[in-house]
């Protein structure tokens, strides 16, 4: 998977495991942004997502010897990040943190044609997503933000396609309810 002249993930992983710690920066650079969007949507905040991505990258280093297939480092890193996101969400639930205080996640792009409604709707959906269960939010994000097929999501999450669809369909209903003013 490496570009011409660039080391593959597997080569870098092996080098790091052999002791060349500084080479890990290659993997950090390569993958820092790849899952940022997923983490932001799952956690409802870009800042919290950034912490999660940072922690996941460090943890991936700590556990690098556990990476069974070094040429699939990216997928493995995703799993670590995913677990971190779930842990963060569980922690928030225990602490009773109100969801409405999710930070502003993105700057609304300037829409010269004044499509204020569209921007409002996008904000509303982001807030509504935080009111879903973590599993519902995840299947929605993986399918509609990240563009994965149900089979791919099943492969990542370990759930069956049937149970994913059930979750998603409940999510659709809940989102409709939460967004009713914005959808008319």
């Amino acid at each position, binding site marked *: 998977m490496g570009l011409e002249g660039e080391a593959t993930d597997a080569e870098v992983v092996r080098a790091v495991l052999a002791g060349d710690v500084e080479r890990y920066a290659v993997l950090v650079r390569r993958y820092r*942004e*790849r*899952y940022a*969007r*997923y983490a932001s949507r799952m956690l409802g905040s870009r800042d919290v997502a950034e912490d999660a991505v940072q922690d996941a990258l460090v943890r991936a280093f700590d556990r690098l010897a556990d990476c*069974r*297939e070094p040429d*699939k480092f*990216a*997928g*493995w890193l*995703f*799993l670590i990040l*995913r*677990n971190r996101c*779930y842990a963060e969400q*569980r922690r928030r639930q225990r602490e009773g943190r109100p969801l409405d205080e999710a930070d502003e996640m993105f700057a609304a792009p300037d829409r010269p044609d004044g499509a204020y409604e569209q921007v409002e709707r996008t904000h509303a959906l982001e807030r509504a997503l935080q009111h879903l269960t*973590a*599993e519902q939010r*995840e299947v929605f994000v*993986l399918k*509609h*933000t*990240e*563009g*994965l*097929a149900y089979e*791919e999501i099943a*492969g*990542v*999450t*370990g*759930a*069956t396609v049937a*149970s994913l669809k059930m979750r998603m369909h409940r999510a659709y209903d809940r989102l409709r309810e939460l967004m009713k003013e914005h959808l008319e």
Partner: protein
Amino acid sequence: MRTIGIAITLVLGTTLAGGLGAQDVQALLDRRVSPEVQRAVRDIAADAAAHGLPVDPLVQKAIEGGAKGVPGDRVIAAVRALAGRLAEAKEAVSEAGVAAPSGDVVEGGADALNAGLSRSQVGELVRVSQPPQDPGLTLRVAATLAALGVPAAQALQLVQGMISAGRSPSDLLGLPGQVQAGVARGATPAQAAAGLARAAGGPPPGRAPDWVPPGQRKPHNPHKP
């Protein structure tokens, strides 16, 4: 005597783990176990086969005993005891509604009984192990949990919880290791199992994806007008 031995082995259809053929099995038996013990084991095995029980585990147990230098009479006693457990396991599994269980499931049931689970618990585990679950695997995992010191009822509960949370057989296979990790951190086996049962409701650990991870492709939007 040797020919009869091979013939019976072939009839019983043994291919042990590792894909050994009947002749290899016979060679192992010869090396490890005296002719008298072999005769006794074959009788027990023939009887077991007549009752529809798997024979491989009996032969395997005899080979194990021989390798460990166990006296002949104790090998025979162990093989007989195992045959008894297999019979009991087959009954328990049949009571749970599986009319003709595979040898693997019966073996798993025998492991579970050996580890201290009751017949009804064995039956319960078989009942909840509908596809994609594998009842033989489920039973063995429960047996291993019990061997780790998790009380039988709790092992059952943990496994059932994982299955109803939609976890894969592979996730189940990882349970003993997780209980052990919990024990290493200072919990009792029961506490570690309870912790896992609570987490079972949560998201599965997942598998490293084979596909291109998120973000590397243009989002698929089927709704472009």
